[in-house]
């Protein structure tokens, strides 16, 4: 490949004197217009990315991180304008380029891997053709050559049977494979700069781990500079060389990954890191530190530190004048007046953070539960003959990847789905679908849902939403409903003034709080929480988790918490079930799960967690292949098709029985317990394992 640099004399001169960065963004301001209102979404952002460097840009939703990515691609929404600043690619100003010049650059020198792989591929074209198209455009290859190169490229990103995959349509391959196709598209022209916009968001952890491996591998092979946009600090720590933290359109801190994670300088960075439940902890746990408050309204900015309203260290001067960058170590800068904080360690410490002593009495029990959905190709066994129980006052976690049947289990318990076989009993009495249950029964089991945007009826006020269960179950007399609604809101840390609002007037985290208040309104004994925090920003997640723990301790009710994030589950739950393709792999306390013996699947899940804590070494186990679909019957252990520790025919033929490790800790695996116990732990503090 020929490397065409700009040939203008001044550029050559500059190249000679200093090494030109691949991408240099300096002083960029971007404004969005909505009617007459101006939103300065990006303000004075500067950074540089050198050849072969991976640069992470981390921010929460609304921080403007994607806007930066699309500004580099010169592909802003039509109501967005770059007001000032320069964006230069290898010394050439992208903003001064004509449309034709951009056409030649995009896909050849600068490539992009977008979020949401399914919608980013054309549903009506075969994936091979979509890769080949780039080669045809930029290298003028003919059909056959382009196809051949495309297939080779699909092989490079480790897609199984690339010749066959090339002929498939996007909907026929899994999410992880779709993302691989997009990565193949991005690398097939050997670009100098690659922009990745949350490429692993929405993928399961084990898939994410493999995609990140692939990106790392491709980066080394092609020596490509990468601008990596994400909200996930863990991913950045594992992938990038340098990182910038962006908040409300401003970079607040920048530095190399190792030192930034070790000693975050800006209060916002510190806050973000404290919000995340620790993957590797000692027995005592602290309450999480949520970042209180909201993003500032960009249409009405004041000359002050952008983070000051939410900053616990904010001084008078922070509210008067915006700070500028100061250096805080080698190649590091922070946009703050201070670099040293006496962090008061005032976080409330629980001796035992998790539910206070669950009782021995079983509250809900699923016995050989089975749920099949008839499909055209056969029955899909979403839940396959599983038995479990949840005790009074216990927080039971159900963890697994998408499609493992965890949500179906929850919906069966709450009565939204009819069970196909087996039975669910509550306090010893069999229960069926919700409309067949007694009113008293319905009152006792409530549910909090996953998607804050869909959990509240947009046409009802918060008051209508919260008082409805009060009226339906006659919890309080009519005259006291308003008062009770206010009390309920206060228990979820909201105030009376929310009562008259409509759901679209409040934030996602607040909607989840209202959903929780609604669930608590009937004074239930069991609440099913179906991934209630997974679509929220980490700083908001922390607040909801704290709230859930507080409420549980106060009311001493039982939770069944569905999740996919093992760190969150560990933080919250008394007992955890690991589920794979509708079957239970392992049950135990969180601490049991995090130490050997592990079920091989649990081990793989743990090893795929993107860890943020410094000085933790993590064993690398990668699951090959994809989760088998639950339609074709899987003989033997459900995990045998991907298990890295498969011992032989027995795994393929016989379903493993649950083996008791110790009371309450069971593993369903054929591998002898001693062997399972003998493995090295996945996490080790401050020491490196070589496998």
């Amino acid at each position: 490949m020929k490397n065409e640099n700009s040939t203008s004399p001044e550029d050559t001169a500059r190249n000679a004197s200093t090494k030109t960065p691949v991408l240099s963004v300096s002083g960029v301001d971007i404004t969005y217009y909505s009617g007459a209102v101006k939103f300065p979404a990006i303000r004075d952002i500067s950074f540089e990315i050198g050849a072969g460097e991976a640069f992470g840009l981390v921010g929460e939703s609304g921080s403007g991180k994607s806007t930066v990515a699309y500004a580099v691609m010169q592909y802003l929404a039509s109501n967005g304008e770059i007001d000032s600043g320069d964006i230069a690619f290898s010394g050439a100003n992208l903003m001064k380029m004509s449309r034709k010049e951009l056409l030649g650059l995009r896909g050849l020198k600068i490539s992009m891997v977008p979020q949401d792989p399914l919608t980013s591929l054309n549903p009506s074209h075969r994936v091979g053709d979509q890769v080949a198209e780039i080669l045809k455009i930029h290298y003028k290859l003919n059909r056959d050559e382009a196809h051949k190169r495309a297939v080779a490229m699909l092989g490079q990103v480790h897609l199984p049977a690339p010749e066959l995959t090339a002929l498939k349509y996007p909907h026929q391959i899994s999410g992880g494979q779709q993302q691989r196709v997009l990565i193949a598209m991005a690398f097939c022209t050997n670009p100098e700069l690659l922009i990745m916009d949350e490429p692993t968001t929405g993928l399961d952890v084990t898939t994410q781990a493999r995609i990140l491996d692939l990106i790392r591998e491709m980066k080394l092979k092609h020596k490509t500079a990468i601008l990596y946009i994400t909200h996930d600090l863990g991913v950045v720590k594992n992938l990038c060389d340098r990182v910038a933290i962006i908040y409300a359109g401003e970079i607040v801190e920048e530095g190399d990954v190792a030192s930034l994670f070790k000693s975050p300088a800006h209060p916002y960075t510190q806050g973000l890191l404290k919000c995340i439940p620790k993957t590797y902890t000692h027995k005592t746990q602290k309450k999480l530190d949520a970042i209180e408050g909201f993003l500032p309204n960009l249409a009405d900015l004041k000359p002050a530190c952008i983070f000051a309203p939410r900053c616990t260290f904010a001084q008078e001067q922070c509210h008067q004048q915006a700070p500028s960058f100061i250096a805080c170590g080698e190649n590091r800068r922070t946009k703050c007046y201070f670099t040293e904080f006496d962090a008061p360690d005032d976080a409330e410490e629980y001796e035992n953070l998790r539910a206070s002593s669950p009782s021995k009495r079983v509250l809900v029990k699923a016995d050989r539960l089975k749920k099949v959905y008839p499909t055209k190709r056969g029955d899909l066994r979403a839940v396959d003959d599983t038995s479990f129980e949840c005790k009074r006052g216990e927080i039971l976690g159900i963890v697994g990847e998408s499609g493992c049947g965890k949500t179906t289990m929850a919906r069966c318990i709450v009565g939204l789905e009819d069970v196909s076989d087996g039975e669910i009993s509550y306090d010893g009495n069999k229960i069926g679908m919700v409309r067949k249950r007694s009113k008293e029964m319905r009152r006792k089991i409530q549910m909090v849902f996953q998607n804050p945007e869909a959990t509240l009826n947009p046409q009802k006020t918060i008051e209508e939403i919260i008082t409805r269960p009060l009226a339906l179950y006659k919890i309080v007399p009519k005259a006291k409903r308003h008062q009770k609604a206010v009390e309920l809101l206060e228990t979820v840390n909201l105030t009376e003034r929310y009562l008259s609002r409509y759901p679209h007037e409040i934030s996602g985290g607040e909607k989840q709080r209202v959903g929780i208040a609604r669930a608590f309104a009937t004074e239930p004994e069991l609440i099913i929480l179906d991934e209630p925090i997974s679509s929220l920003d980490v700083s908001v997640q922390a607040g909801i988790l704290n709230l859930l723990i507080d409420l549980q301790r106060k009311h001493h009710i039982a939770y069944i918490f569905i999740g996919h994030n093992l760190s969150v589950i560990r933080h919250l739950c008394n007992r955890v079930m690991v589920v794979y393709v509708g079957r239970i792999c392992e049950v135990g306390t969180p601490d049991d799960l995090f130490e050997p013996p592990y079920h091989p699947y649990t081990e793989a899940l743990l090893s795929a967690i993107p860890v943020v804590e410094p000085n933790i070494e993590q064993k690398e186990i990668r699951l090959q292949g994809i989760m088998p679909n639950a339609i074709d019957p899987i003989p033997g252990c459900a995990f045998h098709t991907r298990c890295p520790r498969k011992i032989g025919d027995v795994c393929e033929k016989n379903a493993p029985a649950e083996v008791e490790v110790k009371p309450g800790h069971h593993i369903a695996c054929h591998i002898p317990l001693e062997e399972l116990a003998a493995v090295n732990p996945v996490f080790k503090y401050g020491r490196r394992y070589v496998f």
Partner: protein
Amino acid sequence: MSKNDSTQSGFKETISGFLKNRLSKINFTANLIIGVVLLLGFVFIGIFAPYITPHDSEEMYYEHLKEMPSAEFLLGTDRYGRDILSRVMMGTRTTLLIASTSTLIALFLGIIFGATSAYFGGRTDNIMMRINDIFMSFPTLIFAMLVIGVLGPSMVNGIIAIGIIYAPRVTRVVRSQALNIVHMEYIDAAKVGGESSFYIIFREMLPNLWPTIIVEGSIRLGYAILLTAGLGYIGLGPPPPTPDWGLMAYSERTYMFETPWPVFAPCLAIVIAVIGVNLFGEGLKDILLAKGSRKKEAKV
């Protein structure tokens, strides 16, 4: 939107972007305002026609046969010397009555069938949609002709025919929107909360369906006016002496060579009425069904 000389044109584009946004806003409301004004005008004329017509619509002025528009007869007279303006005004009443009543019937049936079908899903939904599809495989005009032709042309039969043939079409629209809602978590929340099916359909789902229903209703009303006029034109409208726009246009067409205005006057009324309804519908659509999400737009 080339990015050449971005610093210079940046300001200009800001202004033009601003104006564009402003203008498109005005445009939307203009649609709605014109629509509402026209619609209200027709409703007013429809209700008060007998009191405000300049002449008796049936009175034949034998000395004024087939006259051009004049101060006395603003839209001229027909071959019997009747005042065309008065007849068009009286015709408003017939058309609006048939079109709006049949639309309301179609909406009523469509809401009930569409929402229940979506809510219960499964087999219920399958059977209901099969039946719906069968009714939808009749062209509207043909079905209306069949019913009216067999039962005899009258206002009531017209209303029944149009109402029945539009109901499946409304059902389909309501159902497809209801299907989006039925999988929302707040519906699950209501089920978990122990609400009855009736409550969920009419108190949880219906309020979210109103925007769709209102827009669909205004679109239907436009179609219904055109269909009513078309039926009148082929002689299947209410029989004379009820004044009807379609029939007026048809019965005067033989004389179009000499005097075109008796044909075009009722046609013009139809066009204005339908444009009014359509503008109203478009305006409502922009307001009620506008998508909140700001999406990236292709720079192509």
